[in-house]
């Protein structure tokens, strides 16, 4: 179970047109990248978090989703605290400020992207990419990959449970061996699944393309304008301060 995926399907913003969500989130992402981190990034982080809560997430869930990327960002940012010179390693003069600015920019960017993923199911995102010119074959591969991920995940977790039940997780060497055996057993399962799906789709008239009907969404220009206006306001505000 992938939590962001589950949340996207349960989101209050689930039915909003992709264009609105994409404009808001990608706009926030661009602002996070382009504006000076103070106060731009902080504004973006606040707006994204507010959006998450309005779209139906609880604050603890939102923070839990932000935590792992935050950890990775912290490790990277920590390097800016020190400097290396001929005399050896020392604290960088403005390292704290540099690290803080980097941390806030990255965190704001992560929040902006995360807001998109917890409100928009993958199918809609790929549909959007398709409209932006992603070749149809690649869109189909991408969506079929998405579908297979969940099947294989269930298989992998059953395999893992079975290995643990037979004490395959006891000790470092055994865990490596178990993980290797699992991966080796999973790959043929994945390829088999593909072959069986091909058979199943042939019976449904598969002729090479995987065309389906997408639910139509009506984009309301005034709402796009409001979102764009809001983003512009944020940009203006942070440049002015």
């Amino acid at each position: 179970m992938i939590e962001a995926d589950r949340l996207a399907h349960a989101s209050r913003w689930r039915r909003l047109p992709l264009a609105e969500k994409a404009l808001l989130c990608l706009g926030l992402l661009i602002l996070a990248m382009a504006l000076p981190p103070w106060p731009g990034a902080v504004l973006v982080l606040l707006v994204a978090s507010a959006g998450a809560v309005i779209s139906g997430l609880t604050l603890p869930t939102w923070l839990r989703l932000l935590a792992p990327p935050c950890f990775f960002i912290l490790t990277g940012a920590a390097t800016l605290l020190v400097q290396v010179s001929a005399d050896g390693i020392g604290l960088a003069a403005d390292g704290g400020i540099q690290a803080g600015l980097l941390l806030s920019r990255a965190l704001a960017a992560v929040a902006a992207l995360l807001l998109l993923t917890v409100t928009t199911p993958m199918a809609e995102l790929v549909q959007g990419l398709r409209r932006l010119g992603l070749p149809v074959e690649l869109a189909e591969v991408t969506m079929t990959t998405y579908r297979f991920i969940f099947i294989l995940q269930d298989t992998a977790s059953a395999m893992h449970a079975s290995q643990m039940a037979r004490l395959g997780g006891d000790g470092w060497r055994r865990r490596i061996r178990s993980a290797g055996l699992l991966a080796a057993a999973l790959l043929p399962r994945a390829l088999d699944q593909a072959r069986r799906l091909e058979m199943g789709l042939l019976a449904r008239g598969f002729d090479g393309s995987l065309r389906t009907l997408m639910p139509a969404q009506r984009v309301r220009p005034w709402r796009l304008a409001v979102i764009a206006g809001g983003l512009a306001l944020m940009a203006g505000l942070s440049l002015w301060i």
Partner: protein
Amino acid sequence: MHIMEGFLPAGHALAWSAVSAPLVVVGAMRLRKILRDRPEARLTLAAAGAFAFVLSALKLPSVTGSCSHPTGTGLGAMAVGPAATSVIGTIVLLFQALLLAHGGLTTLGANVFSMAIAGPWIAFGVWKLAGKLGAPMGLAIFLGATLGDLGTYVVTSFQLALAFPDAVSGFGGAFAKFATIFAITQIPLAIAEGLLTVVVMNALAGRQIKTEIRA
């Protein structure tokens, strides 16, 4: 080794995207041709992509006690070739960014370069070279996967050092800093991934998996 969303300054993010894009586009074009000739290959390709995604979410025990995740780049390069690995790798990186908030859109180009291009080619090259020099099968696989993994980490450190040069010692110092910090987690992980790949390739050798999606 993923660079998180927003971590690279805008200029660097764009530059790395510009570096990776042509390589991915060329791969994608070749892939399109294959998919037109053999429509059923899209299912196989999707299965391989999903496999790579699930594999990368597999917890690997690491020597330091913490858990890490394999990159699968070495395995992909050896099983289906580095070119196909690049395209599959890009799809997987996109899914990781969107579904797991691991990596990002602005850093996709940089991550694709280190993990879907540099890593697989290094792994593939080392594997082939070790084989030519007469290394036993298992050792060649181990070296390929381990060095492929280490290669991605060196490239990532390089990318970060370019973006954040040290105030005093510049790029060199920054590279040393990043390389040292990540070495703690990456060297044990690279060894674990090398061993894992040996186990997988051995097990697969007994099953004669058709490498039907070699691009």
